[in-house]
């Protein structure tokens, strides 16, 4: 336990300890204020009450999180695949890029969740398709924009190199543009992953299937069980974190081998 591992451990501790401590302090203040000032639960529920709800219905919350998570995941995958493919196509066929890019920028300007009620009436109230559709559209936008930006960034020397090698445009796309755009792709994925969970949960507020976290939050709130609503919110927070961490993990796997620092040599 000397040298690099010890240093890594110290760095890890440095990253973990401060936020955990701060979180504990905030929770303690929250709990103390709610109890001391006798704040009503419909204004702000105490952390212990929320935790009580979590431990009382762990399987229901987990099941709801699983349903919302599945919607988010399926939508995310579809959105990302379509986003990357379309961006690659737009980069390869310039005319198409000029036609599509402004439209996607416009799409990015409208709150995607607004589409939830419309899609729901299109596909029916008993289908998960509208929610996954909303997630897919929400995830598609950052993925498309970031990928296109990444694909557009090609250094002059690489361009001339490929030209001197008589490479086709498709070869340039495959060998230079796509691998070169991976950092941008990862940024897009991180944004898309967070958006996916938000969209999946929020789109449940507009009705439809009653099996997700969003439904549980609004349902518990309607039933004036505010700690129960907060418990479901906690589930959404955890779900969002999971997605974010998964995106980070993908980024590490994809880019990890590149970012070997020069100083270590």
């Amino acid at each position, binding site marked *: 336990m000397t040298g690099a591992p010890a240093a890594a451990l110290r760095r890890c501790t440095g990253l973990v300890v401060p936020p955990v401590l701060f979180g504990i302090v905030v929770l303690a203040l929250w709990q103390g204020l709610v109890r001391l000032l006798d704040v009503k639960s419909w204004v702000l529920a105490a952390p212990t009450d929320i935790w009580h709800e979590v431990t009382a219905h762990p399987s229901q919350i987990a099941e709801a999180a699983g349903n919302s998570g599945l919607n988010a995941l399926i939508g995310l995958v579809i959105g990302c695949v379509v986003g990357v493919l379309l961006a690659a196509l737009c980069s390869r066929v310039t005319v198409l890029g000029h036609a599509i890019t402004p439209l996607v920028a416009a799409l990015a300007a409208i709150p995607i969740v607004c589409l939830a009620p419309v899609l729901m009436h299109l596909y029916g109230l008993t289908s998960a398709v509208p929610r996954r559709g909303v997630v897919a559209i929400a995830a598609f936008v950052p993925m498309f924009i970031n990928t296109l930006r990444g694909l557009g960034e090609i250094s002059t020397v690489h361009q001339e190199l490929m030209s*001197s090698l*008589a490479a086709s445009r498709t070869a340039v796309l495959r*060998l230079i543009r796509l691998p070169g755009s991976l950092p941008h792709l990862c940024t897009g994925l991180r944004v898309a992953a967070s958006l996916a969970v938000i969209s999946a949960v929020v789109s449940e507020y507009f009705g439809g299937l009653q099996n997700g976290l969003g439904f549980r939050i609004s349902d518990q709130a309607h039933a004036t069980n505010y700690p129960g609503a907060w418990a479901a919110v906690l589930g959404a927070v955890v779900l969002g974190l999971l997605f974010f961490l998964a995106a980070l993990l993908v980024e590490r796997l994809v880019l990890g081998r590149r970012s070997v620092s020069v100083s270590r040599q």
Partner: protein
Amino acid sequence: MTTTETSTQTSTPAVAVSGVTMTFPTRRGEVHALAEVDLVVGAGEFVSLIGPSGCGKSTLLRIIADLQRPTRGSVEVNGKTARRARLDQDYGFAFQQAGLLDWRTVRANVELPLQLHGVPRSERRSRAMELLELVGLADFADQRPPQLSGGMQQRVAIARALAESPTLLLMDEPFGALDEMTRERMQAELVRIAGETGAAVVFVTHSIPEAVFLSDRVVVMSPRPGRITQIVEVPLGDRTEDTRESPEFFAAITEVREALRGRAGAGKHAANAQGAL
């Protein structure tokens, strides 16, 4: 200085540039990058292009490589049009920056041209190792470019340019960003590599000693409009580290320097050079 006797009579020249003019339209009218340039580079010959910034030496190199089209005039590489030669991969090009792909290993970078032209994997691999051996980087085959020094990266780029055994190597100030010591070592390496591969080289540089050390002939250019003012023969024989300290080396440096200043019978030499081509 006598007229330049190149191997043009015996075999097809590696490069034959005739009457090449290049003008760029700008807001303040046309800029003449090159005016009526004629140049013949024999097979296996090492020729440097030297001149102040804006004399069009890089432009001339890029026209030979078919990376730019001349406004007028013609370029032949190995007796073919420049475009045909580019598509047939008759030349390898080494740029000012190494331009390696950071996400590929050193070996995969050298393999890039072979991969593009459908060479099978195992063949690619052995050829890349052979080339890395040639540039003295076999031990670094599995490293990634960011782990290498600037000089090593440039050597990888040269290995990549040699991947398909081109008969012509075009180099655009490949050592420009290197420190003096590394630079001299790289020059010695390049002389050796050019000798071993038998490739003709057209080498663009700002450095007079570099041009003299490397070349059979140094082509001196002047700007506005870019044109060849003189061609200096460098009859130094086999290059060794002692070459750099020989009187002939310094004499050739002086000759190129004076040609660059446009002094000491430059007019006569220019006439000779024109006559030779």
